[in-house]
């Protein structure tokens, strides 16, 4: 154990480098983004499901919608409150949420997910017609 000091110094430097991102960014965590609602979405007050459900499960919901519409031709979604919706990302979801940049992108960027829905589905069907 002649190299004790050398090893300990090395370890300390190693730890400092490895933990650099943590102590450098300490207390500066980016705040979770608040998605902005359009006036139309605000007026509707509730989405096809509750806000908590939509926050956590919208991707699963859209996945079920996609398979059901494309593969089974079933296009009507009846939510637990008994209200009917046309299962369409472009024509139903984006009709209210017509502000992709402030609504979709904010959270997706924060969570670093890049869904490719918009390579085919048109962002805002109503605004541009």
């Amino acid at each position, binding site marked *: 154990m002649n190299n004790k000091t050398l090893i300990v110094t090395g370890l300390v430097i190693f730890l400092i480098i490895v933990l650099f991102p943590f102590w450098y960014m300490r207390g500066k965590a980016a705040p979770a983004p608040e998605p902005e609602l359009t006036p139309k979405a605000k007026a509707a007050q509730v989405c096809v499901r509750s806000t908590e459900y939509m926050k956590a499960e919208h991707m699963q919901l859209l996945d079920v919608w996609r398979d059901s519409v494309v593969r089974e*031709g079933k296009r009507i979604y*009846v939510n637990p409150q008994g209200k009917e919706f046309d299962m369409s990302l472009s*024509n139903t979801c984006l009709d209210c949420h017509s502000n992709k940049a402030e609504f979709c992108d904010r959270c997706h960027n924060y969570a670093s997910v890049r869904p490719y829905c918009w390579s085919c589905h*048109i962002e805002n069907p109503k605004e541009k017609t």
Partner: protein
Amino acid sequence: MDSSRRRILQLLGVSALALTTKPVFNAFAKEAVSAEAESVIKAGAQALKAKQWAMVIDTRKFKSEADLQPLVEACHRIHNVPRLQNKRHEIKWIWGTRYHNAFPGKAAQFVAESVEHRPFLVLCNHCENPPCVRACPTKATFKRESDGIVLMDFHRCIGCRFCMAACPFGARSFNYRDPRPFIAETNKEFPTRMKGVVEKCNFCAERLAVGRLPACVEASRGALSFGDLYDSESKVRKLIKTNYTIRRKQTLGTEPSVYYIV
């Protein structure tokens, strides 16, 4: 370990208790889910239904290529089909061709002039035995059980083009380029496609779901008929019964659902 009667009885008791935990857990789990009632997914009330959709094209009503244009236009406009000048990149869902191209092998050396010069409208035949579906490695293209339409799930298409090789009718097109810049006028209610997927006619599945006939049939002013092939009272069956019809490449056994009155 010495196993006295008391010890064994204790073990049995604890094990019996453990067996009851699963139902208890299930009961708790169920309660949490049923707090929000279940949602239902169903087909629209006006949706048109059939066992196998079929089309009858009365070719006698088309004199020149120009007569087909409104039908092609109607289809390509509502489905955001791009118009690419380069023939190799061309995307088409429905188009006009000549008799000897549409029916190779059927054309004799000498044919009636009216037939020879008549334009033939061709599209996906929505075969009852579709070779493209068998070729697809991802099940992106499939024959819909409910109404026999050969459909594409663009989400799943990996662009391998096996289906294009398998289709004997050349009904499929591949997006070699991003199609968006080549769509003159976008229909906001229908998605576009992206680079790297195959596309083709979908028998207007999105219109049938809301009770409307395909766009080409609507634009044809009676030259095209649409209906259920397995309903003996349907319009298409009545036309097939009273007219001589032919189908494309029937000998291949794919059982096309598009019939031509010549």
